């Protein structure tokens, strides 16, 4: 399992550095921008009023953007699940299936490696890479923290990252589960992406429309605290989200244990011909 873990870490090293450094630049610049924003508090307040609650609903819903929690939520944690979620669902859906679709899984599984060791070795590496990205992002915040004048500890800053980590693991595990249940990685990633975006919209719009309250109960992002976790992390929600993430991972593992390993290119779902660009291009050529 260690060999698989190490190999998966190596494969994702550039992702770890790329995502981590990019996010840390965002977090660092966010902290550096805090003081200038406070200096322009009156203009900012009128700007927030002008945008109104409908706009702010998509950035955590808070109008108190100059409190540490509100600022972090508005500037980073409210929308970052969508952006970092792309990493999460792409890596999650490809954790096993990318090798199967490339045709390299056959060779690995012909070695004395149990499917369980392969699965959990990779899942553990995925967990570590996700945690690593968020750790680098946290370092960005820490680097600029002294300039904000906030009375916020490094541990307190870790809490929204922990919340974000769990939400990323949830969507990563969901993508992994769907990749085992559906016959193509693209389909699993697309479906997870659709659910992530739907969850973001439902939770955001539920802040301004009571009609979505019942639907919002099923939205994972409803249980994500974001920047608000700085002051008040809801551990019950966190553990519930973590429980679902583990449940999806367990289901994916069970499916992987039982399924046939496909030779690359077999058994996948293909898009109907009319849905491809080539079909339309050739149809256009025929018309001419």
């Amino acid at each position, binding site marked *: 399992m260690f060999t698989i873990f190490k190999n998966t870490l190596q*494969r994702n090293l550039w992702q770890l550095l790329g995502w981590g450094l990019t996010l840390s630049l965002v977090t660092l610049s966010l902290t550096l921008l805090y003081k200038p924003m406070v200096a322009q508090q009156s203009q900012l307040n009128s700007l927030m009023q002008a945008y109104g609650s409908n706009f702010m609903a998509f950035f955590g819903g808070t109008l108190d953007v100059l409190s540490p929690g509100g600022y972090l939520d508005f500037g980073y944690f409210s929308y970052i699940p969508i952006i970092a979620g792309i990493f999460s669902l792409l890596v999650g859906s490809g954790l096993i299936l990318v090798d199967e679709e490339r045709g*390299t899984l056959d*060779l690995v*599984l012909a070695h*004395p*490696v149990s499917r369980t060791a392969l699965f959990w070795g990779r899942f553990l590496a995925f967990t570590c890479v996700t945690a690593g990205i968020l750790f680098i992002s946290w370092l960005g915040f820490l680097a600029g923290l002294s300039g904000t004048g906030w009375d916020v500890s490094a541990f307190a800053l870790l809490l929204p990252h922990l919340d974000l980590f769990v939400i990323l693991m949830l969507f990563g595990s969901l993508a992994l589960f769907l990749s085992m249940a559906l016959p193509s990685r693209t389909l699993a990633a697309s479906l997870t992406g659709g659910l992530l975006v739907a969850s973001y919209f439902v939770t955001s719009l539920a802040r301004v429309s009571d009609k979505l309250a019942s639907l919002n109960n099923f939205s994972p992002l409803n249980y994500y605290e974001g920047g608000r976790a700085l002051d008040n992390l809801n551990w019950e929600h966190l553990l519930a989200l973590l429980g679902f993430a583990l449940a999806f991972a367990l289901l994916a593992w069970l499916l992987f244990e*039982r399924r*046939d*390993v496909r030779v690359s290119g077999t058994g996948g779902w293909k898009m109907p011909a009319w849905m491809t660009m080539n079909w339309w291009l050739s149809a256009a050529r025929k018309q001419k």
Partner: protein
Amino acid sequence: MSDFAIQTQSLTKNYGSVHALRGVDLEVRRGEIFGFLGPNGSGKTTTIRCLLVLIRPNAGTSRVLGLDPQKQSRQVRARSGYLPGELRLEDGMTVEATLRYLNALRGGKSDWGYVRKLAERLALDLKIQCRNLSKGNKQKVGVLQALMHKPELLLLDEPTSGLDPLIQQEVLHLIQEAKRDGTTVFFSSHIISEVEQVAERVGIIRQGMVVEVAGTQELMKRALRRARVRFQKPQPDPGLEHLAGVKVLGTDGMTVHLQIEGEMDALIKELAKFPVADFETERPSLEEIFLAYYEK
């Protein structure tokens, strides 16, 4: 200890309505080279992948090296070397890194000196990136990784595919050397000449069923032969068609073309009654035998 390295009984595998294996019965003896012949889609790869539990059969049983692959798949794989029919390698690694990774998956059993020796024999550069390998060089990596830990059983799916003739011969030599070291070799192929060259026994699979298993030589002896007899003067009716196993394919002046099944003794004795100028027989290639099975 079982005498057989591989035993399957009624091994069946369906993909929806496609019957890939329709009850494969096979016995491969320990220490032999067994050629598994069949055209594309006949079930060769599916059989091998069932033995390694890469896919699970719908019915039937199998034993590999005396173990049940369904229950002891890790042990089976620890003692086997496998070359997939469609080998793909991780593009971002060098050949050496790939081999070291695969070796680590086996607990680092391989002797690296032996790996280098094999690479040298196969003219394979270990420093090259896998993404830059040609199909033939990728195949060399596949052969090398299957052999490097000196397994008890080699499962090779089309081992010479994509290789140039010189390296093909080297691979066949490696297979023969592995056999001399006690390894059982089960290899699938549709290149009959290579099976004929190295295999002691041959299994022919057709539409998911094994239709023949026999010694390579025995299979060739048992098969139809063609003969051409040229008489010194025209023989209107030499009466050869009445002989058991003999069929007259055609007559061309003083020459008669025959097809003979089984022993030649009766024919030779009958021909001795006539003045014969020339007599030629054609030994059938395994290819012809193979094709005969597919024409049935």
